[in-house]
């Protein structure tokens, strides 16, 4: 008899979350943003009984989904174009992603322009002398194609081209490929004339230095103010009249707990 009672109680406890569960908060859009929002949703679901359903579909479809209401919240990893904005849709920047250009400490070059960086990665500029450095060949190091940092780097600088109608990278095929942040740092730390890029949060080696871009230093302050240009905002979009559960999730993201998770994931907190 005792067993039966215990079993019933156990079943009741197990099914309780389902019976009282609310409809899930739906979030869709940029795959880069969804990496962070998924982690946020996981911790959020532990502390509340609301379910959050996150789908990475790309920035453009995330913006569209928020405007026509297919998702309660849309995600974008780029600023909206004027024709994409709608009067009844709000935007909220939840984090910023910055990419630092790194070179060896022994390299005299301190600053590059966006255009120079683009041309270096296309191998149109191949000698440091052309950008004010020593008369030495530039060793271009990039990341493997699965890297989110590479994806962001290519998108921000426009290092993309089309082959047979399919967008592909325009980073030179002769560039060295490192399969991880650790290897990027080892390569640049051991080679005086190498250049590469990593997330701003990962520049911690005293053998490396990060370059100024268009004479603006790569720092959290300059990224937050929008002056440092190799950076992108992580934006959430939602209707003015927002579902209360979705509003609660957004409050959680902007709270101190949510923002520390953003920082843990290697992005810059905005709050």
């Amino acid at each position, binding site marked *: 008899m005792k067993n039966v009672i215990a079993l019933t109680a156990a079943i009741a406890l197990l099914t309780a979350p389902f019976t009282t569960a609310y409809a899930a908060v739906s979030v869709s859009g940029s795959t880069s943003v969804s990496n962070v929002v998924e982690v946020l949703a996981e911790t959020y679901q532990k502390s509340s009984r609301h379910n959050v359903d996150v789908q990475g579909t790309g920035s453009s479809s995330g913006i569209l989904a928020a405007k026509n209401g297919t998702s309660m919240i849309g995600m974008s990893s780029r600023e909206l174009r004027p024709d994409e904005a709608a009067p009844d849709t709000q935007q909220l920047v939840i984090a910023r992603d910055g990419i630092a250009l790194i070179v060896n400490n022994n390299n005299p070059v301190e600053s590059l322009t966006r255009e120079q960086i683009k041309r270096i990665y296309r191998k149109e500029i191949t000698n440091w002398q052309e950008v004010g450095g020593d008369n030495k060949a530039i060793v271009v190091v990039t990341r493997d194609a*699965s890297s989110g940092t590479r994806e962001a780097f290519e998108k921000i600088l426009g290092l993309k081209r089309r082959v*047979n109608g*399919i967008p*592909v990278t325009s980073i030179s*095929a*002769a560039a*060295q*490929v490192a*399969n991880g942040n650790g290897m990027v740092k080892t390569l640049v730390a051991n080679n005086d004339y*190498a250049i590469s890029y990593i997330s701003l949060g990962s520049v911690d080696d005293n053998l490396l230095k990060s370059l100024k871009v268009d004479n603006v230093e790569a720092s959290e302050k300059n990224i937050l103010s929008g002056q440092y240009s190799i950076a992108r905002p992580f934006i959430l979009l939602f209707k003015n009249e927002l579902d209360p559960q979705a509003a609660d999730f957004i409050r959680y993201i902007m709270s101190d707990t949510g923002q520390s998770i953003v920082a843990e994931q290697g992005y810059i907190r905005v709050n």
Partner: protein
Amino acid sequence: MNTCTKNSDSGIFLRPTPKPDRLGTFFHLLFICCAMVGVVSLATIAWFLFSEGLPAFRQAGVIELVFGSEWLPPALFGIFPMIVASLISTFGAVLIGVPIAILTAVFLAELAPKWLADIVRPAVELLAGIPSVVYGFFGLVVIVPAIEVLFNIPAGNTLLAGVIVLAIMILPTVITISETSIRALPPVYKEGALALGASHIYSIFKVLIPAARSGILTGVALGIARAIGETMAIIMVMGNAPAMPGSILEPARTLTANIAMEMSYATGIHASALYSTGIVLLIFIVLLNAGLLYINKKSVH
């Protein structure tokens, strides 16, 4: 107890057992099962590779895939630069590694005083046990900077760095097998050569090494298989650029490195193209083994 080998046929007639030999049958089956594990694995791997890789061949075309020179997924899937990189790095490793290995094997089997052999042999065996990521790291911090200084080039992450690391990695395999096959020769070979007035060195090069050829070639084939299949160390020292290397002082990407670097995220036709990279690799290994069988057969007759 009767065994089920061919040689015991006569025993069955001499001493027939009244009840069936269950233990014998069990072990017979056990041996067959064990022997089949390798064959079944190979068949499964081949079937898997072909079923996953054929869509890429069908969509991109065999010629475009195997002889295409641009690797730009998801648009272009030319793996020719990687085939070239794999072949050059393996061939270079054999060119440097095999002579060193054979001379070491002769030294250990014929010339070395016991105390020295007792130092060299464990060292070689230990070399076989070092994980490839450690070879890669060694290459990255020692060989790569050395190449930069020696050849005065901006980056030492080159085909040459891969060749040197692979040459060191195949040493233990070739040395161990060559030494064993030289030691396994009947003593009459050497005794006969010496009795005919040949010097020790002459008998080594003209009698012992030719006589042990089959074993040495097996060692070389296993070394080549290791070199062409090596991945981790190569990713760390060769620079992995998917462009056609213009010389051995330029970075390059091997077939194995291509699979390892991109498999984690590839989808659709891109993933399929990586499996077809695996098919090309498998075909190379089959050709290699077939070539070795042919050479061995010719040397017997």
